[in-house]
């Protein structure tokens, strides 16, 4: 394929879409599918046929429409009418309402408010195509400019220039660490020529986080294009997407996308007749959270037990099969195409001084509006939780929001005016993490939350290093002792001491960050621990 053919293909698809007056977009990401989206789409198609509107109305499946808590979601172009909690029974009413005459008729689902801050405060860059295009059709991706940036970098930029562009954009790793992406790319690029790899880390595993899943399900080609650009920049000709088996739909759509891209020679040998070859394979994880840790992920791709190993050497130096390997998270790679397209200055103009661009959060928990939000860095926690999220249902009080999953901590309500960026969250004792944001109300026991995450880490520890394997078990037991109201002040000291020990001595990020939920809740909600402490009797506490 050359550029001409690519542009022609895009034009044909746009023309095809323009033939229809109305485009009914049904969310077919995993969230809405679990609310019956497949049946909704089928019955909408049937209703179109019954109404004899096939020539003017198209029903298509698209990616995530964000408002996951109100699925199944259906949006109708050109007026962008959003219907919430749609069921198959609503289909005839939706179709007959298209004429505009029977708007108030019964059987029509609730109409969403697109002006609500939940939507209005979003800034879609990563999710720009999400909910708009059919993720299973490469034509639709190409119709919105897909693969043009790959062509652009191959034809008009040197690898060095690509890396500089990414570096200047200020993009940082969205997996949680926030390592400067440009620097990572430059390191891999600087390694001597030879076999190198690009790996997309799609092993999203934090409880409550589903950003990466949505991106993969909604816009898989964007990841492929981003990986290919990364491959060109660092001198790699092979990419792996490591995706967890719990995401079957994402895997299916990725497989389909790779097949389509190969068919049109957008992946493979001599892409756009250049000298650049790039192939992508999928590796499906078997359900271990620790495989999201990069050295464990590498071991897993190599077919070994997914155990982390000490770094250095870092994967950039010695990764897959000891070759230099670039590992980026899904959301990081999803940012590459827009950065190349709009330029690094544009990207760097969004966000805060040290955190550029946007961040996708999965907003969940005790909050009215749950779903996916993409906001510019620097948006305050209050805007996210109270304005976009609409606060706690039934006029409850927000107590805190947990970010960073089992590696993170909580932000208590008094700090809600903090702008969200990497550094400010670290200062609060939590972390950006991959983007889970779980809202807690005044009824939430923070000790119980700490124990929930410790239970998770205890179960997900690979068992290699002692502090993580045995320490998380003891931390869990200690927290249980508090919740059983059997703990003493000595136990509180022990809890702190062991938390610091596990944090400082564990081998990989899982163990290092495992005590964070404890340390964070101790920092802001120590009175909850104190309240659970039994009066220390002279004899100490019997635990039989």
């Amino acid at each position: 394929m050359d550029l001409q053919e690519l542009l022609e293909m895009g034009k044909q698809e746009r023309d095809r879409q323009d033939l229809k007056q109305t485009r009914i977009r049904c969310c077919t990401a995993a969230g809405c599918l679990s609310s019956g989206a497949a049946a909704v789409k089928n019955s909408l198609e049937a209703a179109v046929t019954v109404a004899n509107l096939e020539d003017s109305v198209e029903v298509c499946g698209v990616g995530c429409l964000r408002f996951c808590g109100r699925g199944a979601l259906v949006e109708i172009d050109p007026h962008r009418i959003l219907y919430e909690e749609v069921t198959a029974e609503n289909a005839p009413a939706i179709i007959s309402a298209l004429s505009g005459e029977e708007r108030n008729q019964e059987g029509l689902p609730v109409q969403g408010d697109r002006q609500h801050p939940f939507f209005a405060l979003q800034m879609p860059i990563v999710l720009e195509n999400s909910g708009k295009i059919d993720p299973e059709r490469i034509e639709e991706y190409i119709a919105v400019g897909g693969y043009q940036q790959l062509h652009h970098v191959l034809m008009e930029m040197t690898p060095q220039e690509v890396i500089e562009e990414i570096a200047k954009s200020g993009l940082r790793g969205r997996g949680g660490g926030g390592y400067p992406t440009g620097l990572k790319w430059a390191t891999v690029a600087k390694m001597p020529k030879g076999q190198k790899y690009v790996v997309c880390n799609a092993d999203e595993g934090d409880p409550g986080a589903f950003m990466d899943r949505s991106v993969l399900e909604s816009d898989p080609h964007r990841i492929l294009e981003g990986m290919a650009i990364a491959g060109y920049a660092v001198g790699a000709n092979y990419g792996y997407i490591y995706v967890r088996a719990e995401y079957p739909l994402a895997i299916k759509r990725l497989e389909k996308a790779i097949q389509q891209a190969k068919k049109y020679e957008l992946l493979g040998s001599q892409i756009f007749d250049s000298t650049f070859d790039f192939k992508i394979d999928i590796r499906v994880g078997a359900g271990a959270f620790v495989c999201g840790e990069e050295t464990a992920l590498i071991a897993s791709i190599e077919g070994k037990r997914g155990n982390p190993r000490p770094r250095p050497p870092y994967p950039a130096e010695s990764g897959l099969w000891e070759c230099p390997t670039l590992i980026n998270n899904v959301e990081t790679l999803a940012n590459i195409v827009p950065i190349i397209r709009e330029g690094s200055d544009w990207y760097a103009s969004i966000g805060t001084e040290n955190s550029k661009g946007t961040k996708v959060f999965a907003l969940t928990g005790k909050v009215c509006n749950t779903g996916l939000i993409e906001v510019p860095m620097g948006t305050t926690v209050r805007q996210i939780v109270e304005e976009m999220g609409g606060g706690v249902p039934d006029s409850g009080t927000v107590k805190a929001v947990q970010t960073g999953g089992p590696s993170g901590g909580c932000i208590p309500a008094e700090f809600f005016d903090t702008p969200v960026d990497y550094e400010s969250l670290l200062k609060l004792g939590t972390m950006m993490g991959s983007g889970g944001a779980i809202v807690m109300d005044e009824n939430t026991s923070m000790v119980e939350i700490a124990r929930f995450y410790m239970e998770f880490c205890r179960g997900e520890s690979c068992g290699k290093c002692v502090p993580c394997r045995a320490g998380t078990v003891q931390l869990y037991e200690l927290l249980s002792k508090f919740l059983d109201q059997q703990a003493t002040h000595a136990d509180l000291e022990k809890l702190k001491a062991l938390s610091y020990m596990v944090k400082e001595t564990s081998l990989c990020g899982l163990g290092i960050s495992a005590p964070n939920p404890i340390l964070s809740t101790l920092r802001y909600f120590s009175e909850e621990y104190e309240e659970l402490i039994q009066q220390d009797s002279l004899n100490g506490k019997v635990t039989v």
Partner: protein
Amino acid sequence: MSKIKFATVWLAGCSGCHMSFLDLDEWLIELAEYVEVVYSPVGSDLKEYPEGVDVCLVEGGVANEDNLELIHLIRKRTKTLVSFGDCAVTANVPAMRNMLGGSEPVLRRGYLELADETPQLPYAPGIVPELLDRVLPVHEVVPVDIYMPGCPPDAHRIKATIEPLLKGEKPKMEGRDMIKFG
């Protein structure tokens, strides 16, 4: 000079630690000049653990209701409680029953499954103390002041631990001679 009130107690253990204590041989005579033995299975015949004990060596883990009651009494009435030997410090061999997960399966294993004839579960409330679900080291039940591991701690270690206590000092529990388990 008033004598130190000295006690030794035997909970769930094999009495090996007490045998080792008796290995102190002639030093026991010297010890007797410093201490008044107020309670001990090998040194006195008192049934009630007295008040105001200065030093008590506790052998054995806490395995049944009697042990539990006694260890609380000991803690209340004792200045310096020494966890004496591995069973007291780690629960050791008696605790190997903990792997069966509770007193009920332990009794069934011992009195029913392994019985040669007339299998029956022992039940004599008020006479035979009930087993606790788990055998516990002493410090998991009450605070302990000094740990003297060993199975058993040999006489030298016992002497080196007691001697400073007689002078009101804390022994230094360090190194192979003092804290090797087993």
